[in-house]
C-alpha cells in the first residue's frame, strides 16, 4: 500500500459520463492485483472531504502507470473529471483483497455490469487461461466499453443492454443464465451494481457454481481502520460484519449475506 502523488499521463472521456484516467504510480503498478482498488483524493480542499474508491482497471508495469475507469456520479467524480494531464492526483493503494485463482479452474466466466467492467478487465489480462467467456452488460450500446481489447483476450464476449441497442436485450445476469444451459463454468468472477450481484449470487447458488464477487459500500478510511464499509458475510443464518475495503472488496459469492432475501438459509 502506497500513498502516492501520481502525475496524470492520460485522461479521456469515453462516453457521456465515463472517463479513463491513467496515473504514473510505479510502486502501485508493481503491486496491484486484479480486484484491488485505489482510494482517490478527487479534490484538494475539505469539500468534498473523503477519498473515493475506484477499481484498478489495468496497469502498465513497464512505464509504472495505473489506469482507472470511472463514471461521474456526484461531486467527487465531477471534480476528478476536471483534472488535466500533467496535474497530480493523490492515490492510496493498491487496497483490498484481489480475486483469487485456483490452477484447477479450466473454464471461467467473467460477468461485468456497468463499470464492474473495470476490475474484470484487469483480471482478464492477468488470467492466463484459454477457455474464458466474458459477459458485459450496460444500459445501452454507448456504455459498452473495451470490446476490442476484450475480444483479443477472451474466447467469447457476450453483450447485454437494457435497451437492446447492443447484444442481448435484458440484464447481463439473464444473459449469463441463458448460457448456463450450454456451458459449465468452474468459477465465475463478477462485479457490478448491487442488484445485479444479488441476482447473480442467487443463480450461482442455485446452480452450485463457485463465484467471486466484488462488492461496493460507502467508505471512510479505505484501509480497514474505521469499520464504516462493513457488509454481512456468512453462511446459513450466521453472519459477521466484514470490511469491504480490507477483507474485500472480493468475497466468495456464497458468503455474501443478502438481508432482503430468503436465500441465505
Amino acid at each position, binding site marked *: *500500500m502506497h*500513498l502516492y502523488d501520481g502525475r496524470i499521463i492520460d485522461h479521456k472521456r469515453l462516453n457521456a459520463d465515463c472517463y479513463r484516467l491513467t496515473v504514473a504510480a510505479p510502486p502501485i503498478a508493481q503491486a496491484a492485483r486484479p480486484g484491488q482498488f485505489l482510494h482517490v*483524493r478527487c479534490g484538494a480542499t*475539505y*469539500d*468534498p*472531504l*473523503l*477519498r473515493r474508491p475506484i477499481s484498478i482497471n489495468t496497469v502498465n508495469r513497464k512505464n509504472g502507470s495505473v489506469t482507472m475507469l470511472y463514471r461521474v456520479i456526484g461531486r467527487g467524480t465531477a471534480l476528478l473529471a476536471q483534472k488535466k494531464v500533467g496535474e497530480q492526483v493523490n492515490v*492510496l493503494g493498491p487496497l483490498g483483497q484481489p480475486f483469487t485463482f485456483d490452477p484447477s479452474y479450466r473454464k471461467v466466466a467473467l460477468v461485468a455490469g456497468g463499470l464492474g467492467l473495470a476490475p474484470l478487465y484487469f483480471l482478464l489480462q492477468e488470467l492466463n487461461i484459454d477457455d474464458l467467456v466474458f459477459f458485459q452488460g450496460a444500459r445501452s450500446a454507448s456504455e459498452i466499453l473495451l470490446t476490442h481489447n476484450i475480444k483479443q483476450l477472451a474466447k467469447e464476449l457476450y453483450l447485454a443492454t437494457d435497451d437492446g441497442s447492443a447484444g442481448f436485450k435484458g440484464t447481463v445476469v439473464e444473459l449469463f443464465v441463458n448460457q448456463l444451459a450450454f456451458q459449465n463454468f468452474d468459477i465465475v468472477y463478477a462485479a457490478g451494481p448491487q442488484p445485479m450481484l444479488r441476482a447473480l449470487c442467487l443463480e450461482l447458488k442455485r446452480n452450485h457454481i463457485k463465484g467471486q464477487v466484488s462488492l461496493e*459500500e*460507502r*467508505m*471512510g*478510511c*479505505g*484501509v*480497514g*481502520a*474505521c*469499520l*464504516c*464499509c*462493513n*457488509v*454481512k458475510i456468512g453462511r446459513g443464518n450466521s453472519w*459477521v*460484519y466484514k470490511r469491504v475495503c*480490507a477483507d474485500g472488496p472480493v468475497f466468495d459469492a456464497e458468503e455474501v449475506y443478502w*438481508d432482503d432475501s430468503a436465500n441465505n438459509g
Partner: protein
Amino acid sequence: MTVRTMVDVAGIKMKNPVTTAAGTFGNGEEYARYVNIHDLGALCVKTLTLEPHHGNPPPRIAETPGGILNAVGLQNPGIDYFLEHNLPWLLRHNIPVIVSIAGSTVEEYALLAAKLTPDTGIAGVEVNISCPNVKAGGIAFGSNAEMAADVISAVRQNTSLPVIAKLSPNVTDIKSIALSVCGAGADAVSLINTVLGLAIDPYRRKPVLANIFGGLSGPAIKPIALRAVWQVYEAVEVPIIGMGGITTALDAIEFILAGATAVAVGTTNFINPRAASEIITGIYNYLQECHIPDIKNLIGAAHRQEVV
C-alpha cells in the same frame, strides 16, 4: 533552536501532544505503514465493550459539507479479545496506549475498568460516555451531569490507571458536565465526541444512514470543538485532550491555545493517512518558527492575552 514538545496528561507522558481519536485509527496496525507508530505521543484505540458488538447495519457513513456522519455503532471484538490479541502488538511500540471503554450500564463500566490494571501495560483509560444508558431509557450518559459522574466514579473505583472522561458536545452546558466528571474523579477530560447529525437522501427520500442519526466529525465541527475546549479550560483544572476536525498542525495549535494539553487526530486520518505524523512535525516547526521553547507555554495562551 531546540524546542520541547513533551506533555503530561494526568500521568500519561507523551513525547509530543498528538494522539489518535478513538475509533478512527483502528488499533494502529492499519496505519502502521503510513505513520511510525512510535512517533505518536500516544495512541487511543476504538472503544471496547464487555461483549463483542456487531455494530449497526450499513450504510454507516455519509459525507456532509466538510465532515462525515458515522454510525458504526461501537462494533468491536470485546475487551478480552482486545487484551489478548491486539494489545501486545500495540505495547511493542513503546508509546502510551489509551484504551477507550463504553457500557450500557454503570456496572458494565465498572467491570470493564476492573480489567484495566496497570500491569496490562496500558497507560490510561478513556471513558466514552456518549453511549445510551439502557437503564435510564437510552439517554446518553454524557448528556447528564449526574449520570456522567456515576460512570466516572465507577471507573475510578475500579482502576488505578489515569481516567480520562470523553465528553459529548450534545449538551447545553459542557462546563457543568466537565465539573461533574472531575468531581467524580476524572484525571483528565477529552473532547469532543461527535455532534449528533442527520443526512437525508433527497431521491430515496429517507435517511442516508441505516441508523437514521449519525455522529458528525471532521473539519466542519472544528469551531464547535474549539469552543468546548475553551469553555472547559475555564471551568476545570485537569488537562484536556482536544479533538474535532484537526487536519493540520495549525489546527492543533488552535486547540492548544484554547486550552488543550494534547490533541487527537480523527477523521483526518481517513483523508491523509500520514496526517498524525505531519501534524507532529508541523507542531515542532511552528514552535521553532515562532521561537517558543516549550509547547507548554502555549496551553491556554489565547485566554491570557488581552483581546483587542
